[in-house]
């Protein structure tokens, strides 16, 4: 993962596709932001910035929660498995139950619980709501990371180096944590976590768009922290998106997209562009490490 300085940096960046796509993403988002500063009205710009920030923070929170949940559950499985404990069976049942629920349904259930909490005045702060939403997403995504962790541990447990280290009196927990997970699996786990970031953006935007119809008479999207999905679900953004369709029949309308329909176009662009870049970064990352 070290950058070798015997090569020129531009050449290095072009060869390492993850670095290249990170640069493309940063450049693209910076250009979009500059354009919005120049041509998007101040309230819409403020909404877009907040929504982008919230979505980005939510993605990072999901990565954090997923990593913690996946590691705890993965390690617990390994610890309990050799001891044939009843807790192992219970844990397997719970994780299988979570696995059986489609992610998007699971996140919708989370929103319903959050709505109940808001209705009962248990929760009001936007920060807590964002953390709660992120945790709900993590709960239905972390198994992908947890499965990977367990798979890696199982794979290396069959290898001679695991047995050889045991025979030398090295503690099993140290072998799993340092030798297997840290030294042999970190790139794979990081690759998965980058994908989780992409999944989060996709789930968050999809669910926010779905619940734009409203969850209760008292609670609507406006009660939740603004995200790119909720911004896209707003009426003016929807009209902006429809305007993209107009270009197909009237090409002369195309330049207007970048001035008159900037809010919706900016949101749609940042979602699609970010998802594409995360996908490319993730692929480039694993290719480099291989």
């Amino acid at each position, binding site marked *: 993962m070290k950058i070798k300085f015997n090569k020129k940096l531009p050449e290095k960046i072009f060869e390492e596709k993850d670095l290249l796509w990170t640069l493309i993403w940063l450049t693209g988002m910076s250009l979009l932001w500059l354009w919005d500063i120049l041509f998007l009205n101040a309230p819409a710009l403020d909404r877009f910035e907040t929504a982008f920030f919230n979505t980005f923070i939510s993605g990072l929170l999901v990565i954090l929660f997923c990593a913690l949940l996946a590691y705890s559950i993965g390690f617990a499985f390994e610890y309990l498995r*050799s001891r044939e404990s009843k807790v192992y069976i219970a844990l397997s049942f719970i994780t299988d139950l979570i696995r059986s629920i489609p992610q998007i349904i699971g996140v919708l259930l989370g929103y319903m619980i959050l709505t109940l909490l808001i209705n009962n005045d248990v929760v009001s702060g936007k920060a807590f709501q964002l953390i709660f939403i992120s945790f709900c997403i993590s709960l239905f995504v972390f198994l992908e990371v947890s499965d990977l962790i367990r798979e890696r541990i199982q794979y290396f447990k069959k*290898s*001679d*180096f695991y*047995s*050889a*280290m*045991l*025979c*030398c*009196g*090295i*503690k*099993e927990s*140290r*072998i799993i944590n*340092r*030798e297997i997970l840290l*030294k*042999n699996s970190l790139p794979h786990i990081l690759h998965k976590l980058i994908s989780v970031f992409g999944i989060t953006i996709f789930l968050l935007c999809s669910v926010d768009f779905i619940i734009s119809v409203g969850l209760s008479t008292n609670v609507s999207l406006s009660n939740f922290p603004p995200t790119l999905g909720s911004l896209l679900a707003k009426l003016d953004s929807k009209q902006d998106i429809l305007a993209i369709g107009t270009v197909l029949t009237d090409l002369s309308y195309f330049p207007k997209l970048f001035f008159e329909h900037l809010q919706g176009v900016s949101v749609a662009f940042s979602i699609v562009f970010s998802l594409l870049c995360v996908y490319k970064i993730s692929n480039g990352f694993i290719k480099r490490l291989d």
Partner: protein
Amino acid sequence: MNLKHSILIRKENNPLVEIEDFSCPKNKITFLFGESGIGKTLITKALYGLIDPLELDVTIDNQSYDEYLKSERVNEIQKNSFFVFQEPSSHLNPLIKLIDQLNEGSLNGELEEEKILESLWNGVDKKIISQIMQVYPKPYRPSGGEKQRVLAAMAFKKIEKYIAEDNQANTLFVFDEPTGNLDNRFRNIFLDMLFSRFQRKQFTAIFITHDYSIISEIYQSHPELVESVEFKELSKNKNGLHLSKFESDKYLHWIDSLKKSTSINSEFDEKIFSVNSGIVVFGRKLSFKKENQTKEELVIGKGDVVYLKAGSGVGKTTIAKIIMGLQNSENFSAEIGGLKFDSNSTRKFWRDEIWGKKITMAFQHADEALNLKSKVRDIFKGLPINSADDDDLLKAKLKELFNFDADKTFLNKSISQLSGGQKQKLNLLRCLVLNTDLLILDEPVSGMDFESIQAVITMIEKKSREGKGILLISHNEEIFDSLIPADRIYTLTSE
């Protein structure tokens, strides 16, 4: 004629092999020694024209690999010679029967096939040989030794073909550890077959091996051929790889000195370990026997070095794994320092009482026994000893076995970047640094050069003097038969 080559092999501008003076005398058999992973196979593959130019950048005698491959000499070599790969599975096609592969292309024809097969499967019924030859090679069958015999048979057929032709074309037969899966009896049969053909018509051959006892075998059984063979050793120095003549006397004198030495004779008279005969695993009963004696338990006293030997595949490593609690078995019972354990002992028992405390084991293949993603610096970390994190302890131990002062660059080196011999030394060092009553060393000198073998023997002697029991498992019979008194040598049998 002594052909000297300068060879440079690179991957993405990183040199893998760089040697100025690789010589291979014409119409002689060159036995090429050197620690594993140093580049012996790569060099011979490059010379034979087997490297994919798209994978690696090869320059031979300052000409590009494309030009080298087009040369008349290489074409002649490929037409008249054969390359026996170290790992026979990589040569054999799993979708074609062995017998058909033995008759593919230029190998088609009788070419003494039956005689060759009978010699290579000496003592085996013809019907069984023909049944084996009808098998489609899979990873698990036929056995490694049988696959190796098939490749040897192909090479001998090609030699027969060369002998039958009335010309003196360029040849380069390469045998890359062709007897690695065979015991000494079959290795000697292989050598007999090779030398008898060589005497009929000379050819150029490179025989890659780590088995220095081949030298003794040649001097004892084929003294007339001593002038027709060369012993060479590939080593690494600051300027890259270097090929030098290996003085056979150096090895022969050393073996003599081992026979006379009494350094390994234990001064202690206290039993520290015993394990019973008749252990049942995979439906086979494994027993220990001393020379001319019946089955008995294997006993190791304080400071004793005990040698356990057996043919390939009998179960030497399996026994070690059973003792270490890594392999389930029946009718197993053992005792170490008054602590008894058996087939019913739990994993917790081994974890709490045995591993790293009473017994430790160095695994056979360092490549698999070490975490290749670790650094040299990390090799002692986590071990149940004081100063496991101390670089000074590591440097002192490295000096004993590697015979050089390890600097920061070496300590920070990834284990994957080390040669096979260096990895094996680290693998042993991790066990030798522990203070356990018993050390099990599985093939401790495999893949090592002569200097390293001597250093390992010295460390084993030192451990013995410290009063530690050592169980050695090795197919390198000449070295350990010479080193260890006959009353401490056990043969493992299977029934």
